[in-house]
């Protein structure tokens, strides 16, 4: 038991995490591509045409995974940030910083695909639906986190300040979602009811799950690549960095 705890802390140092991340990245890329090919195959060639939405519904296969990832990544980012604040491990803060841009990208993709789905289905690029609005606010939260980290020069202070912001954000996200939902039902008269999801066939669900797995693996691979760059940038004056490169 003790042994395993020591093992874990060993990987918490940038020195041992850097090569470990380097070894893991190709595997995550390989599985991202495998899941992606399977997911795309199902989303374009296996999943049947939807009775109500025709072929337009196929946007769901990227829209839903992107939305899921944007939410998961915020939670994971906050988890790493909180861990860094509690245990004062250096890699945790770097992980949080590495995840944020990918999370913001996912939120952006979710908004973009949401708009492209909304136009043919509801006749408008943007409707103030509870989920779309929450996604937009989540995007703003990511931007705030990245802007705060970019504005602080001292990396340790940037990590800690970012951690507090991420944790405040995590506490707030359910409140924001609930309030936006409340606001949306209150103004129901002027908007269209969007809560009715298209009846989902089993194959559609499979396609969505595979695409979500592809997005997961992709996010991990990119975040690990970015965390390696951050490790080198921050540790450039240490002895081990000089020996780690050949």
């Amino acid at each position, binding site marked *: 038991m003790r042994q395993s705890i020591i093992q874990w802390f060993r990987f918490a140092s940038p020195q041992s995490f850097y090569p470990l991340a380097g070894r893991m990245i190709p595997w995550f890329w390989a599985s991202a591509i495998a899941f992606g090919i399977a997911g795309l195959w199902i989303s374009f060639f296996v999943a049947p045409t939807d009775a109500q939405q025709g072929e337009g519904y196929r946007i769901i296969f990227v829209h839903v995974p992107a939305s899921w990832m944007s939410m998961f990544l915020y939670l994971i980012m906050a988890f790493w940030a909180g861990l860094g604040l509690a245990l004062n491990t250096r890699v945790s803060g770097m992980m949080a910083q590495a995840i944020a841009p990918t999370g913001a990208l996912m939120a952006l993709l979710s908004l973009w695909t949401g708009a492209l789905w909304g136009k043919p289905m509801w006749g408008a690029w943007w409707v103030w639906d509870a989920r779309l609005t929450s996604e937009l606010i989540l995007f*703003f*939260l990511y931007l705030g986190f990245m802007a705060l980290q970019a*504005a602080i020069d001292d990396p340790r202070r940037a990590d800690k300040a970012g951690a507090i912001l991420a944790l*405040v954000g995590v506490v*707030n996200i359910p409140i924001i979602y609930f*309030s936006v939902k409340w606001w949306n039902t209150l103004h129901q008269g002027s908007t269209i009811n969007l809560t009715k999801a298209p009846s989902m066939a089993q194959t559609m669900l499979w396609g969505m799950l595979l695409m979500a797995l592809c997005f997961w693996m992709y996010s991990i691979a990119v975040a690990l690549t970015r965390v390696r760059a951050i490790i080198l940038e921050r540790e450039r004056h240490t002895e081990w960095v000089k020996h780690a490169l050949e």
Partner: protein
Amino acid sequence: MNAFLATVRRDLLLALRRKSEVLTAVFFFVIVTSLFPLGIGPEPVLLKKIAPGILWVAALLATLLGLPRLFAADHVDGTLEQMALSPSPLGLLVAGKILAHWLLCGLPLVLLAPVLGLQFDLDASTLGILTLALFLGTPLLSLIGAIGAALTLGVRGGGVLLALLVLPLYIPALIFGAGAVEAHIAGLDAGGHLSLLAAMLAVAAFFAPWATTAALRIALE
């Protein structure tokens, strides 16, 4: 408790010596709300419909104006470090500063709101709900804003960054605050909105000084 009251008193005295800072936020609130009818047109029905939203958004931005100064002066002259080292808990002193900020930047807006509401053709009972909602909501804005002010203390481009960090977190307050007034205008009960605002205020009053203190300690390191 004495240290808490002493901090409130001190901040109030300091602010009253430089009146312009307090007055800026108030004038901003008045001018912004008066600009909307000029931009939209004097149609009373339309103005009445958008009044809660406009008054609330203006209040949001007006409280934001005073936030960068919440800790900045004390940070520059070293008072903040003395506070962190003092025997009374920093959280208590921070809570005192937040209360002082609300008394200076929030309370004047609450008191002015009924007068500005008249511009939008709101009747007496609606003005009452508006004042009550702002009375519950503006302390919430000060509490959440303090976290952002502490995080951006001494940081490049602090003011704009502060707005980017804090405004998304203000959304629930905006929705329930403006929602209370809208519900009342629509003939519904505003009680639900107001009690949710009060609940959020209670949660924020408990957590925000704590988070602000943690952020300040990081900035002081």
